[in-house]
Structure formats: structure tokens, C-alpha cells
């Protein structure tokens, strides 16, 4: 008995502690003058970060694996970047103007920025990079670059981009468009050259990636660290043993399964923040009986999300009610309790829909995602309680992408949709014409709202639109929106300055060793 109870009592304390830690961090961050009682960042040191997966390539225009992006963030930069709230901020572009009709963007390129090879950044490099992204032969995975009908550099410090039609999320897409020097482009896959705060020293496949501080980095005062090593340690328990031994200093995105070990060890600390991921059980709306809204609502009532968070994620997660994480503050609408856990109501709804004795259904789970598998096991048991007999089927990620995501051949599946910086990119996947609308969700009001949001730039109207979209998804029970799993970061005492972002990156600019 003891273990379970203790764990439950301890939980709020941890959450509060985590909040306090992140609060104090962000306080410090907002007053860089150092008037707070926190130690001033010390310059120097060699930080070792444990990451679970090997990067695939360092060519920023090809890489899609999140594992690669989290490292690349420190090497490459784009015209614009984002802050901790996900707002777009200047980066290689000092400032920009958007034309009245919303189709022409004019960027003023920052002066005095150097590439890692020592050459000065010019507007021509930006044009080259954007053209490279647009080129089919490069293999950039997303389709938005096709919207740029013209990219030009009227002078050395200006870049002008014309779009075929207004596209509100354009700036947030540009975040991923790294600027690279043409002379280094051929070898980027293994020898990255960017403008970021760190440059690569060595990459030993399967073992580690080593970065060193770029002395000519353009931002004043950062980074603090001399050297950073990303060690590839696939198993979280092994990573923790290394953390305890001091051979690793930080483990970002720690699996909740082993978080207890960090909490139980003195000299280690655990930060908790939102991940900006929507974990959901997608329902194939084209399949019977899921096409019946009452059945979907019944499923929603039958699932105890609080218990799922406790059981599958050891309590580390934020309950969701629609397809948006609370981290998207300005657009988020709290619908977490839209469907109360109510098995009795679920049974009534099933009976109403003509299934008083339940039905048989298959739940497909991507086997390489332990959290989704665990959640799925629990969901299956919960649905069993109201008479829905669930058969679990595990599929490899490759099969999942092809059969479930592309061909939409499934009943139900659990997956995590990684959040984006712009609400349009988050919510447009439920538009009926969207190529990857694997839920088969169709709703006229929803489609119209998404289209409207794309064309207008008025902030408060956009807020209204995307809040209504979330509401529609909840009302229609388009899926079972479960949780935003917490982003847990384990680190040794003495490491400070870690920042959370609504995107999957490890920002090492502000990290330092306390003296």
C-alpha cells in the first residue's frame, strides 16, 4: 500500500516545487541585470547532455527528426526565432515589414553576423538558402516553401519574399529555414556550418556530438559554456546512472518512468514544463460505429484522463480537452473537463446509439512509443468497463506512418501530435481537405474558420477563430484528447539557466555552471 499512497501525497509538492523552480528561473531570465539573489552566470565549462537518439543528418534542410533539431538549434539560425511564449522574435533579420495585402515580406538582415567558417552573412546567403529549401531535389519535407513565388535581395542587407497568397503562419514557418553559406552546402550533412552560438567539433555516429562555443557569435554575452557534448544514451535508466556518476549533467525530455530516481537522489534536480504535444486517441470517423457522435462521446466519458496521466505518465502531464496544449496561452481554450469521467453516462450513450452490449474494436499503437503503448493498455481496460471490447495491435513506426497515417486504415490509435508555434498549423490538420487529416474529420464551420484565419492578421479575431475551432473539436468528440505530457529535464545541482520553449529544442545559450 505504502508505495502508492506516498507517491500520491508527494505529487503536489513536486509540482509546486517544479513550478517554483521554473518561476524563479523565468524571473531571473527577465531581469538579466542580476538584481535577484541568484548567482551570476559563470563563463566556461564543459556540459554533457544525454540524448536518446542519434541525429540522422546535420543538413538543416533535410533533417526532420526531432532528435536532430534539438541539437541543430544551437548550430543553425533562421531569419526569425521564437521566445519562451512562442512569439516570433528577430534573429538573423533585425526587423521586417509585411505589405498591406499580406503577401510581401521585407526583411532587414542583421549586420556583423559571421558564419562558423568566418565569412560575413549577406542577403545573398538568405536567398540561396530559401531557394535551396524550395528546390525539390533538396528534400525539404514540408510544402510551405512552395508558397514563396519570389525571393530576392534588392541590396546586401535586404531580402524580399513574395507569397502567392496571404499565409498568416509564414513567419513561424521561417523559424525552421536555417540560413547556410553556399560554399559549405555540399557537406552540411556531416560538417554543419551555421551562424549559431556553437559550432560542431566532432560527430561520432552512435556515440556523441561535440560542440564548442563560437567565439564570434553575434549575440552579446552568450553563450556561457565553452563546450557541449551530446552523448547518445538510448536507455533512460543508463542515462540516469551516468547523471548520478557525474559523467552527464543534463537529461532533457526524461522518460517519466525513471523520474522517481532523479527525485530520490540528492544532488539531482528535476524540472517540469509543458512539452507542447497533444497526446490523443484518434478515432477513424469513417468507420462504424465511430461515425456516430454518441459513440465517440461515450468513449470520451469512459476514459479517465486523470488516471491515465497518473498511470501511464506517473502524474507528469497536463489534461487536455481539445487539440491544443495550454502552453499556447494566447489561443488556448480550457476544455479539459468538457467530458467528465462518467462510465454510467457512457453506457447510456452507447445504448442510445444502439450498442447496449458494446462492440469490438481495434486499437493500434506505435510500438516504439512507450507512453502511447502504456496509455493504450489502460484505455483498453477502461473501455472494457463500459462494454467496448478492445483488441490491442502494436505496429512499428514505419507501418504506423504508412498504414494508419497515410492510408487511414485503422479504427483507433494513440499518438502524440507535436505542437507548432502557430495555431493554424496546429489546428489545420482537422480541415477536411488537409492531406493528413487521418481522423477523417469533416465540418463545414470548422473549414471556414480555418480558411478565414489564414487570411487575416487581426490578432483578436484570430484568437476567437482558433478558440471556436477547439470548441468544435470537443463538441464533435473528434478524438479523445488526453494530455500534454510534461517535458522533464533532469540535471545535476549546479547547472542553471535551462529554458523551456514550446518547441523541441535544447537552448544552451543561457545554460551555465553555478560557481
Amino acid at each position, binding site marked *: 500500500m505504502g508505495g502508492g499512497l506516498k507517491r500520491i501525497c508527494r505529487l503536489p509538492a513536486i509540482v509546486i516545487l517544479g513550478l517554483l523552480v521554473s518561476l524563479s528561473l523565468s524571473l531571473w531570465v527577465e531581469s538579466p541585470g542580476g538584481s535577484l539573489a541568484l548567482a551570476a552566470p559563470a563563463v566556461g565549462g564543459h556540459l554533457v547532455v544525454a540524448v536518446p537518439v542519434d541525429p540522422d543528418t546535420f543538413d538543416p534542410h533535410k533533417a526532420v527528426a526531432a532528435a536532430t533539431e534539438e541539437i541543430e538549434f544551437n548550430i543553425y539560425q533562421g531569419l526569425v526565432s521564437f521566445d519562451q511564449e512562442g512569439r516570433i522574435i528577430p534573429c538573423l533579420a533585425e526587423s521586417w515589414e509585411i505589405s498591406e495585402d499580406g503577401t510581401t515580406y521585407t526583411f532587414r538582415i542583421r549586420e556583423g553576423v559571421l558564419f562558423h567558417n568566418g565569412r560575413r552573412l549577406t542577403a545573398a546567403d538568405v536567398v540561396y538558402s530559401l531557394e535551396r529549401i524550395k528546390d525539390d531535389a533538396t528534400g525539404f519535407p514540408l510544402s510551405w516553401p512552395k508558397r514563396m513565388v519570389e525571393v530576392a535581395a534588392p541590396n546586401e542587407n535586404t531580402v524580399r519574399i513574395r507569397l502567392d497568397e496571404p499565409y498568416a503562419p509564414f513567419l513561424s514557418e521561417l523559424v525552421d529555414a536555417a540560413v547556410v553559406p553556399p560554399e559549405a552546402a555540399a557537406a552540411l550533412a556531416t560538417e554543419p556550418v551555421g551562424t549559431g552560438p556553437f559550432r560542431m567539433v566532432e560527430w561520432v555516429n552512435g556515440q556523441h556530438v561535440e560542440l564548442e562555443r563560437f567565439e564570434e557569435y553575434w549575440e552579446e554575452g552568450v553563450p556561457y559554456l565553452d563546450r557541449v557534448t551530446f552523448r547518445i544514451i538510448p536507455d533512460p535508466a543508463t542515462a540516469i546512472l551516468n547523471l548520478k556518476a557525474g559523467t552527464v549533467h543534463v537529461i532533457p525530455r526524461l522518460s517519466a518512468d525513471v523520474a522517481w530516481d532523479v527525485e530520490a537522489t540528492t544532488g539531482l534536480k528535476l524540472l517540469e514544463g509543458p512539452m507542447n504535444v497533444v497526446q490523443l486517441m484518434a478515432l477513424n470517423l469513417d468507420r462504424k460505429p465511430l461515425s456516430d457522435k454518441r459513440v465517440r462521446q461515450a468513449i470520451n466519458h469512459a476514459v479517465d484522463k486523470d488516471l491515465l496521466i497518473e*498511470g501511464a505518465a506517473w502524474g507528469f502531464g497536463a489534461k487536455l480537452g481539445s487539440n491544443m496544449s495550454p502552453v499556447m496561452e494566447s489561443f488556448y481554450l480550457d476544455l479539459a473537463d468538457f467530458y467528465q469521467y462518467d462510465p454510467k453516462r457512457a453506457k447510456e450513450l452507447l445504448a442510445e446509439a444502439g450498442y447496449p452490449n458494446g462492440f469490438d474494436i481495434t486499437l493500434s499503437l506505435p510500438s516504439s512509443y512507450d507512453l502511447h*503503448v502504456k496509455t493504450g493498455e489502460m484505455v483498453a481496460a477502461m473501455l472494457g468497463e463500459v462494454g467496448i471490447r478492445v483488441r490491442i495491435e*502494436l505496429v512499428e513506426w514505419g507501418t504506423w506512418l504508412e498504414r494508419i497515417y497515410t492510408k487511414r486504415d485503422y479504427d483507433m490509435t494513440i499518438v502524440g501530435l507535436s505542437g507548432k508555434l502557430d495555431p493554424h498549423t496546429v489546428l489545420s490538420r482537422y480541415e477536411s481537405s488537409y492531406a493528413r487529416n487521418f481522423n477523417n474529420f469533416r465540418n463545414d464551420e470548422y473549414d471556414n474558420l480555418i480558411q478565414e484565419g489564414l487570411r487575416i492578421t487581426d490578432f483578436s479575431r484570430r484568437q476567437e477563430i482558433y478558440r471556436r475551432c477547439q470548441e468544435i473539436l470537443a463538441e464533435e468528440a473528434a478524438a479523445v484528447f488526453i494530455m500534454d505530457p510534461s517535458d522533464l529535464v533532469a540535471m545535476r545541482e549546479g547547472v542553471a539557466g535551462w529554458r523551456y520553449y514550446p518547441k523541441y529544442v535544447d537552448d544552451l545559450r543561457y545554460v551555465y555552471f553555478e560557481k
Partner: protein
Amino acid sequence: MAVVWRAKRLTIKGWSSEAEGFRQRARPRRLQRRQLSIWLGGSLLLVICLAAAASWWGLTLEPNAMNIRERLLPPGPGHWLGTDHFGRDIFARIAYGSRIALLVGGGSTLLAATLGASLGAWAGYKGGWWDELIMRLIDGLMAFPGILLAIMLVTVMGPGLGNTMIAIGMANVPVFARITRGVFLTGRNALYVEAAHALGARTWDIIRYHILPNGIGPILVQATVTFATAILTEASLSYLGLGIQPPDASWGRMLKEAQPQMGRALWSVLAPGAAIFITVMALNLMGDAIRDRLDPETR
């Protein structure tokens, strides 16, 4: 050919977990040891079978019943082997896992023995062109270490109980094919078989009455060995996430799932590992005993 044959025999034995290729003289002490093997192996196997039966008849707790409030309980009166990360009863899951292990082990061994023996018999009896074709294929298959072949097949067919059984079975076909072929090759040319031929006996009768009886022994010994190896392979596959799928309990998967908690819930990694260990040891001991019994030199 004698040289090649000798080397091949070694290959077969080196492959299996039993590499005792060289006989020793009978000694009274050996007999005692054999008795010990039978008793120990037999009783351990009985325990595993009882656990499987208990699970089959529903005498344990429900192996998949979750109770998050009672997760990671240490062993105690309510839960003999404690509970896992979902609060499921580990004893019930171990018992269910023994069903899976025996089923996959037995099923794949049966498949491997039937298919392998048929292929080997065909090759050995027909000889010539057939022999060449089948044995080259078997050689090609043998180039893949057992678990690699099983991984390859499971990847193609997808995980799950049936596919795991088939994949492990297929991976073990070559051993049986070789043994049986050897028996038929020597049997075909043996004097008494030629005599039977001369007397006008039918092919099938010759195989049945004159060749097969000599083959049963080695095949049976190999079968116990394969049974044990198959259980180990299933556990490995499930450990890698390629074998038995949740919510079904399998020892390998239980081990994998328990690993993150091993620092605070030691019992949850000890129990499934010990179950695999005990079962494999029981089968090995039985295999030793059978071999001793069948070996004409020690009888």
C-alpha cells in the same frame, strides 16, 4: 566425405546449446547424476506446468487487472510476487507467461521438427539433385544466427503470438533438417536397409521400420534443446519488443517493462528472469537425461 561430415556434425552441436559431442564411458556415478537430472528437471518443469495450468483454469488473480493505486507493491500476502507499474499481480502474470512460453516453445519446436525432419528426410533419402538443392538452402539459412533469422522473420510478419512461434520455428528448421538427413544418409547405405531392399520391401516400410527408429533418438534430444532455446529466443524477442504483444504477459516483456523501476522494485525484474532461467534449466536437465538414456554407450 568423412571429413566434411564430421565437421558438419560439430556445426550442428556447436549451434545448439548442447555441445557435448564426445562420449564418455559408463560409470556408476553418471547414473546417479542422470537420476538427479531427471528428478530436478522433472520437478521444476512440473512447477512451471502447474503454474501454466493454474493460469489456464483461472486459479490466479486476473493477470491484466490494473490498479494504479496499488502499483509497485513489494511481495506480500495479497500479491505473492508483488505488483508491477500498473498494479497488476506479478505472480498471475508469471503464471500466464509460462503458458505463453510453453506454447511458443512447444509450438515452434514442433514446427521446426516436422518441417526440418521432412526436408532432411527428403534430401537424405532422395539424394543427388534434391539433396543438393535442399542442403544448399539449409546452408544459406544457417548463415543467419538463430535469433537474427527470427528477428528478420518477425519484422516481416509482424509481432504477436502466432508469428513469434512461426518465426522461431523457421529459424530452427535447419538443425532438424541436417540431423535427419544424416540419419537417412547413413541409413540408406546401411547393410540391413540394402538387405530389406533386396527382399523387396516398399520404400515407405523401409523408412518406417528401418531408418526412422535410428533417427528418433537424435531428433528427440535436439527437440528438448530446441524447446529450451526457443523459450530463450521468445524472451529475447519480447524483450526487444518484437515478440509477444501487450496486454499479454510474457516473461521477456515483463523484464523490459520492469527495468526502469528496478532501482525501487527489485522483485519486478527478479521474478520474470528467474522464471525463464528455471524453465530453461529444467528443459536442459531433461535433455541431458534423455541423451544419456539414448546413448548406447552409457546405457
